[in-house]
């Protein structure tokens, strides 16, 4: 159980970023007209940040099942890269793949990839489950709070709102420092430049997916030379 609790502890930083985002999702969805139960169902089943906001807009516009499914799948297409990259670090198969895959969000993947090499190989699966469960719980709690109390708390102190808006950039920067940036500078520089350039012409979820591919390809090309 120790690796599980260690993963749960590692999810605290993700949780600090997730609660305010999930809170604003809960608030947005309920204020747009969805019931609190449907709002919580979306967070419980989809568990994928930006695409949940788009799904709310699609549901309210009366989109068909196929239109909504196509949009959400396209937005989350980058997740196909995460499983194979994570699998290369898992040397045991005690935990069923669905349990390891369900919570593989951007932030969970980023945290796992920056820290997993420091975990003993036999303990990595348990650590990943703890990490995902912690992040998932924070996501659900944030959504529930936003759906229940969002309208009364939306005018909180400006310093708090500004601070919460910077949790994810601070988290990603801390994770970048943790991921041995000296060894991966080609991947980091190419992905960063590509993301900035592509975001000017593409929606951010497409820019993200393409930038990841560019960074990984540049890294692999550099390793072969």
């Amino acid at each position, binding site marked *: 159980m120790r690796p599980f609790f260690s993963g749960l502890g590692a999810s605290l930083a993700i949780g600090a970023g997730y609660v305010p985002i999930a809170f604003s999702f809960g608030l947005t969805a309920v204020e747009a007209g969805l019931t609190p139960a449907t709002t919580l169902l979306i967070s419980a089943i989809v*568990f994928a940040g930006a695409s949940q906001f788009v799904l709310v807009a699609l549901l309210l516009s009366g989109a068909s099942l196929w239109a909504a499914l196509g949009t959400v799948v396209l937005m989350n297409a980058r997740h196909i890269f995460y499983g194979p990259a994570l699998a290369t670090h898992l040397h045991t198969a005690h935990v069923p793949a669905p349990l390891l895959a369900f919570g593989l969000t951007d932030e969970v993947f980023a945290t796992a990839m920056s820290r997993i090499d420091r975990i003993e190989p036999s303990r990595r699966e348990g650590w990943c489950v703890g990490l995902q469960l912690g992040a998932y719980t924070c996501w659900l709690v944030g959504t529930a709070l936003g759906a229940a109390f969002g309208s009364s708390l939306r005018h909180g102190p400006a310093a708090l709102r500004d601070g919460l808006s*910077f949790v994810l950039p601070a988290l990603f920067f*801390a994770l*970048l420092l943790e991921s041995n940036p000296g060894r991966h500078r080609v991947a980091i520089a190419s992905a960063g430049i590509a993301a900035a350039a592509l975001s000017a012409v593409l929606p951010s979820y497409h820019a993200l997916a393409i930038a990841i591919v560019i960074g990984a390809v540049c890294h692999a090309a550099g390793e072969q030379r």
Partner: protein
Amino acid sequence: MSHTGWIVVACGLGTFLLRLIPLWQARRRRGGHAALAARQRRLSGIGPAAIAALLTLSLWTPMAQDPQWTRIAVAALALLIVWTIKRTRGGIALPTLAGALAYGLVLHYLNTPG
């Protein structure tokens, strides 16, 4: 179940399968030590590339929509605080929270009249 409920379930299932199938296939294709090492080398850039792209977009998108030098300078200062605390204390949670706190407080101080 309502039509809305079916759409939510379908979108959840679609997202789950995007995460599950590649992981499941990668585990089945495990192969020998040499094959695993080769695959690890090929895929080792994905993690840092994803983190760099996520960091760039989380900083770039709001700054591009509302470019204010004050916000950019305060963001740079907050990242410097993350870097300093990461180097001196280590970990992820403490540098993250310190950076976010610094960003909120400094911005609030600069925006307070008088």
